[in-house]
């Protein structure tokens, strides 16, 4: 299962992906994964637009993504909007050493924990579950940025969070 990078970024495909990460992790294909967005006509449209810059991308539900990942021989960059999707991918067999946290925008109920990341308590706990499955959770916007341990950051902002 050739995952070059899995990233949580609620903008999904955008400039940081097309201009920096793709070449850095040497990926030749993007999977945008999410059960809701896979059915959203505008998101599907967005994926089509992203092909303008010559990028090979696809949009899948979690189940379809896992199936396609199994068959694929590409080097794939997986983009998800939220930690829940990342968790269900990992729990169901997607193999990664580390999860990149790039961007989760602010909305009501979320707390800004890093320059570009806001999460609520449930989302924080989901990140923790990912960590407990043995996957490092790293905050890193761009390849040129220093990676930092996102779980440590979460611990500072949410008290009742524990790593097993």
């Amino acid at each position, binding site marked *: 299962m050739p995952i070059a990078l899995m990233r949580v970024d609620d903008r999904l495909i955008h*400039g*940081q992906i*097309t201009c920096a990460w793709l*070449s850095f992790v040497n990926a030749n294909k993007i999977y945008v994964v999410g059960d809701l967005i896979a059915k959203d006509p505008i998101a599907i449209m967005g994926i*089509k*637009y992203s092909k303008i810059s010559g990028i090979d991308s696809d949009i899948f539900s979690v189940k379809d993504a896992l199936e396609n990942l199994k068959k694929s021989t590409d080097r794939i960059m997986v983009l998800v909007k939220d930690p829940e999707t990342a968790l269900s991918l990992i729990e169901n067999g997607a193999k990664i050493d580390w999860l990149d946290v790039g961007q989760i925008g602010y909305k009501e109920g979320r707390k800004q924990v890093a320059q570009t990341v806001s999460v609520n308590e449930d989302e924080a706990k989901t990140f923790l579950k990912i960590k407990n499955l043995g996957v490092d959770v790293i905050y890193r916007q761009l390849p040129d940025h220093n990676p930092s341990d996102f779980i440590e950051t979460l611990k500072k902002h949410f008290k009742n969070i524990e790593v097993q």
Partner: protein
Amino acid sequence: MASLFQAFLCGLLAYVARWERVNPQSAFSSSTMLGFLTGIIFGDPLAGLMVGGTMDLLYLGIVEIGGATPPRPEIATIITSGIVIELAQPAEVAVALSFPIAILAAQLVNLAFIINTGYMHYIDSLVAKGKFGTAEFVHLTGGLTTEFLFQGVAAFLGVWLGSAAVSAIYGAVPPAFWDSLITAAQLVICVGLAALLRTIWKPEVVAFYLIGFGLAAFLHLPMVSIALLMGAVALYIFTTKKVETTGAPEKVEEKPKERKLSSSEFFRIFLRSLLLQNTFNSERMQASGYWFSIFPVLKKYYSGKELVENSKVHLEFYNNNPVTSEPILGMNIAMIEEGVATPELQRNLKAGLMGPLAGVGDAIWWFTIRVIILVLGASMALQGNLVAPFFIWGGGIIFIFGAKYLLLRYGYTSGLSLLKTAEVTGGIERYLDLFTIVGASVIGAVTGTWIGLYTPIEFMHAGAVIFKLQDALDFIMPQLLSLIGTVSAVYLLRRGVSLFKLMVAYMLLGIVLGYLGLLAAVPF
């Protein structure tokens, strides 16, 4: 020593430049222009022009994407131009001095983004109370009191105190050190070029990079000729390449609906959209700018509670490339006019399209047209051509304003029918290829023309030089070391070395090797 008045003018220039860089983005804030104007302030526009051209080459590959702030060259160019002119040093010396300033400038930008979050919350509360006029005013003035002001003050202090500080150490450092800075600067520019190349590093791009390099290094063709020649080659490839018919856009059957905005109303929205990033903040990025752009339309169709609720929709997180943001704004306005704009649909439209379009916009702007304009402009600057800053500015006005206006128009007239188009690729990638080919060639030409690394190593016997190492290298290929400097940097960057660390490493390497007399560079 810079006078207080000169420092003040430099501060003002930095203030305006950063505003321009963030908002209308017409390329007035290119380093070439800023160096030139600082040169006028210090009475030597040509020297300023040289520094500006150098800086544009150096920072060519340090791109600003997705709200991340890399080292910012604006105040670095202004301050170092001033210092270099005062000390009568070559432009390359500015490179070494520019780093710490560019990094500080980025920190100041980040600080402003955090403070702007406060403005964002203030705009929220004003909108909730229905005080729309005040909210618009806050968006219009937010950045003027934070981001741009910080840069202005930093430039003022840097010019005022900086030249005195550098003059003080100037005499204490041996001249050989300053000479070694020229070598170091050119090595760092290799890394700057590599930063751009690493992203587009594919076999066909490498080929055109090498052709551009060869035309410059072996045949000594001028930069503009190389760009035109490679443009012709690209055009040939472009017109002869087979188009896959599956990519053709499906014809939209329904006619575009009649649009209701008068041309002056439309133009006002266009002008507003140029201020998208005026109060860019770390919490919701361009949210207040998007709301500010679309507000006249909201006011036309909604009132009272409905206006407040619809405003709130547009104060949610938004982040896009300012150019490719325009079609979304246009579609959104069309949607409101047609009376189908539910909050949910508008949210989906923005959230669903902003990312992919930003990806396209960033890839096109940062790696194609901008590169060609800047490289040609910077080369003109290094030749002492006073037209250079206006060439870059003019290019920015035509391409940026042109693209923004047309895309806004396109989104507005097509409206929702854009969403029904089955395929949108329609061969646009081929245009991109065209620009990438020319872009890669001119970067190659920069390596062959402006980077002039050579080794002064000689072997002596009985008082006479018997062997010059550089002669042996030239026998293999002229400009070999300049090519190695750039390609090795691409290799290291692609292996995961961080850009900043590599720049510092190459600078130190250049200083050491230069000081020891193992490596040298032909000044610009």
